[in-house]
């Protein structure tokens, strides 16, 4: 069966990855908000990182936020495998 890539960042690499995209300082300082629920995202609650309209957004681990992020990705490309993977 065909396999699609699911991009993932491991806890081991999280700090390095966030630094590389310029988000680490803001996250540590509590300046990043969840793009869905608006809550402050911390290192503990960070679940998704994704680009949208030339900006990098983050979403927290609440299931409703996770669902919203994946659905936003779907809306941009319904019925295709682009976007999320």
């Amino acid at each position, binding site marked *: *069966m065909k396999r699609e890539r*699911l991009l993932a960042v491991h806890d081991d690499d999280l700090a390095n990855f966030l630094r590389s995209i310029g988000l680490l300082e803001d996250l540590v300082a509590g300046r990043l908000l969840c793009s869905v629920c608006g809550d402050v995202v911390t290192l503990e609650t960070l679940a998704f990182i994704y680009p949208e309209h*030339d900006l990098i957004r983050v979403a927290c681990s609440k*299931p409703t936020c996770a*669902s919203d992020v994946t659905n936003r990705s779907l809306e941009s490309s319904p019925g295709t495998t682009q976007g999320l993977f």
Partner: protein
Amino acid sequence: MDLVRDILDFLARIWGYVAAVGITAAGLFWVALTRIEWMESWASTVLKLFAWAFRSAERGTVALDIQSQFESITKRINHEVEDAIPYSVKIAWITETTPETFIREGRVVVRLHYHTHRARNIVNAYLAFLPKALIPIARPYIDPRVLRGIELIVGKSTLTPLGDDVLSVFINDVLTPALAGDDRLRDMCLALERVDGKGLLTRVMLREFLRLGLSYYPRIAPAELVRETVEFMTFLDDLARRQRGQQVLLTFRGRHLRVAIVLVAKAEVFGPFGVTPYIQRAVRNARLGVHTIYFMGWGHNVDAVRQVARSLHESYLIKVAEKEFRLSMDGAPVLAILIAYRNDLRVGPDMAAERDREFQVRFLRSLLQELDRLSAESVSLSADQIAGVVRRNPYYDQDAHPNPDDATQQMLDLGILIRVAETAEEVRYAINRENDVVIRALQ
């Protein structure tokens, strides 16, 4: 010569070992090809032993565990409805990039924790995977709440075998918060859970939605089509809630979804009448333009369903699936069977006349064969018996003729002639005289 003999002796001695090694290697190769999830699961377990020492082993055990679980979930769902999930997952780790590259590539990144947080990792990856992968081509045509409900109920049932910890994270962190404050979604999930409990969620609902997607994609979804998906869910829920002996609607004839369920459930029907009533219903529904006909039965009726399917010889009904599964009836697990037929009979307003004529021909041809058989046995038929022969005919259209007495009038008229006929030739002559459609059909 001694050297050759020694070599042959040696080969003869080690032949058993060579064969054993060869068979083992072939077996492993077969497993690697067909059961990749097993290989990944084993590899994940081995890497876990070294995860404390090596970062690559830690990443490897997390990725392989998720991949193997998703591979088995995908296979399980696809076994119930083919191509419901067209692909599985490969975890691709990202360690660093640049903001420009990240924005340009436009991909969502999921955070995964250490392997000790297995349940959380699987649920996180599942949340990212399922809404993308489950019946992707049909998603634009399904009511969003129904779709969300399907994801939640399919999620619950597919994650259950992965362990209590995974299920607990899913229920506490995903299902319960999703339903809080959304009573409509809660009601839909309850309905979908009942439908799933009767084995109809994947095998019927997802199959029909997938067919819908294949028919419509990439056209824009008409509003009434999306509404119809909610009505279809309600139709299946009514069926799932059906109590023993209760009459419920078994046909859904929407504009876009047209499905007939033929339940083989009553011994008092199958016993005396055999397969005929079920074939009649299937043929009648095919004539009325349903897209798919599902024969279903459970317990001691499983063999009866198979018997009905074996007796179905209509060329336009194409068997597309036969699924055996277990469902819970009155708290006890029973074996159930569902056999799906695609209706390839061309239907539509422009085809109505041709379709009706085709059925008339089939009806009369079939009737003639039966009467031929009876007359060959020198059976003297009464008017009631003739009417009975007509009613039992698979092509008899009860919907077109709600009053059986009126519907059989033409056949009764023939019956008057047939009654006085003593041979098959005379029966044939009687029918031919009365109906030129039969003459054309026989030519």
